[in-house]
């Protein structure tokens, strides 16, 4: 009976230890999913607002210059942002869909890493499962002849269930690893396309747009200032100050930096999934660093992106 108790203690230690090892993906995958959701929300809002940003810019120009009439086509025959979207709505939608797909990947990964094991371990059709179920049955069968056996039935049942969850966690670990190794490179490709968009198209759009808004406000103020009251001048200068802040934000390339942070975290996740046992600790530390940097940047970059979203 003493041998049985010692065996149970050893088994308990093994279970606790294996639990620590098997759950290694839950925390980083959960952080990855949370940050992905936040990042996609910020970047999607940025994408979705590009045409309304251009319309606002156009209307700001009209408001600043009383000689300009508002219209859908300008004097040289070109459509204004009011008449035709500057960026193709279909192109914007395709980018939003790509981002959604990355979000679905992160959500599935999260669901896989956090899947609850079945409560009834007997359903696990494995060799390990069969032997542990037999152990459970053995303890239950000892009840009549072994007075203390009954007190083991509860913990053993619980332990068997726990081991079952650990076993399934071990299986889950492999599934999460496979999912990262299969999906991660595709996520990287999508993100690198989005980063290219940010660097080559939208960064240029927002920097020149913000500078245009600032120059328009400054020229209009200088033209009108003699006719303005003190309060009107204060109000117009406050508007210039806000536009100047937006121009500064525009040069910070916040959308591109946010996507870069996401790519760094995804690469670290990929590296961690592919790491050998001896490199696992170091790759997990790098993954935690990348996730930490991403989490700390999201709020700052979201604040910088806000003025660029109309």
């Amino acid at each position, binding site marked *: 009976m003493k041998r049985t108790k010692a065996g149970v203690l050893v088994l308990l230690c093994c279970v606790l230890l294996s639990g620590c090892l098997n759950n290694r993906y839950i925390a980083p995958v959960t952080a990855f999913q949370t940050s992905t959701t936040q990042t996609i929300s910020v970047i999607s809002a940025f994408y979705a607002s590009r045409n309304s940003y*251009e319309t606002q810019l156009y209307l700001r*120009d009209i408001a600043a210059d009383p000689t300009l009439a508002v219209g859908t086509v300008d004097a040289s025959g*070109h459509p204004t942002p009011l008449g035709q979207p*500057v960026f193709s709505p279909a192109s914007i939608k395709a980018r939003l869909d790509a981002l959604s797909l990355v979000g679905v990947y992160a959500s599935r990964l999260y669901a896989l890493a956090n899947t609850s094991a079945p409560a009834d371990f007997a359903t696990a059709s494995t060799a390990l499962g069969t032997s542990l179920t037999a152990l459970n049955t053995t303890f239950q069968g000892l009840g009549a002849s072994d007075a203390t056996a009954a007190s083991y039935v509860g913990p053993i049942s619980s332990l068997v269930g726990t081991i079952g969850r650990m076993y399934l966690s071990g299986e889950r670990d492999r599934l999460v690893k496979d999912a990262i190794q299969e999906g991660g490179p595709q996520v990287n490709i999508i993100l690198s396309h989005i980063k290219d968009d940010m660097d*080559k*198209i939208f960064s*240029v*759009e927002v*920097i*020149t*747009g913000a*500078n*245009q808004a*600032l*120059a*328009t406000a*400054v*020229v209009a103020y*200088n*033209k009108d200032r003699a006719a303005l009251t003190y309060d009107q001048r204060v109000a117009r200068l406050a508007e210039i100050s806000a536009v100047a802040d937006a121009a500064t934000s525009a040069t910070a390339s916040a959308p591109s930096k946010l996507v870069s942070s996401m790519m760094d975290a995804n690469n670290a996740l990929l590296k961690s999934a592919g790491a050998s046992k001896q490199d696992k600790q170091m790759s997990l530390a790098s993954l935690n660093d990348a996730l930490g940097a991403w989490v700390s940047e999201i709020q700052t970059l979201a604040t910088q992106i806000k003025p660029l979203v109309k």
Partner: protein
Amino acid sequence: MATAPIDTATLTTVINQCFSYAMDARVSPADQNSFLIEGKRLRGQLLNLLSAQFDNTTAQFAAATKSLTTVNTALSQSGTVLANTAQTLNNISSLIGNLDKLLAVATSFV
């Protein structure tokens, strides 16, 4: 046929320079307004040029590229701009004309 995009990075610099001169107190109010108007026209063209490809062997591509280089070089020297504002603005107008001609022969918008 070899296709290439126009140098939008240089064009972006030119546009931002136009807006800077529009806010420069050393430039007369009339010229400030001209820099603002030309900057806006160039930006409108830029948004179309960002996704366009061109046959880089055409005369239109060569003229637009040469014009862009000339304007960019001139705008980067503030002393020259302030001393020859009218000439600078003329060069910018020429650039806008060349870019309009180039957009008319764009091979694709991707």
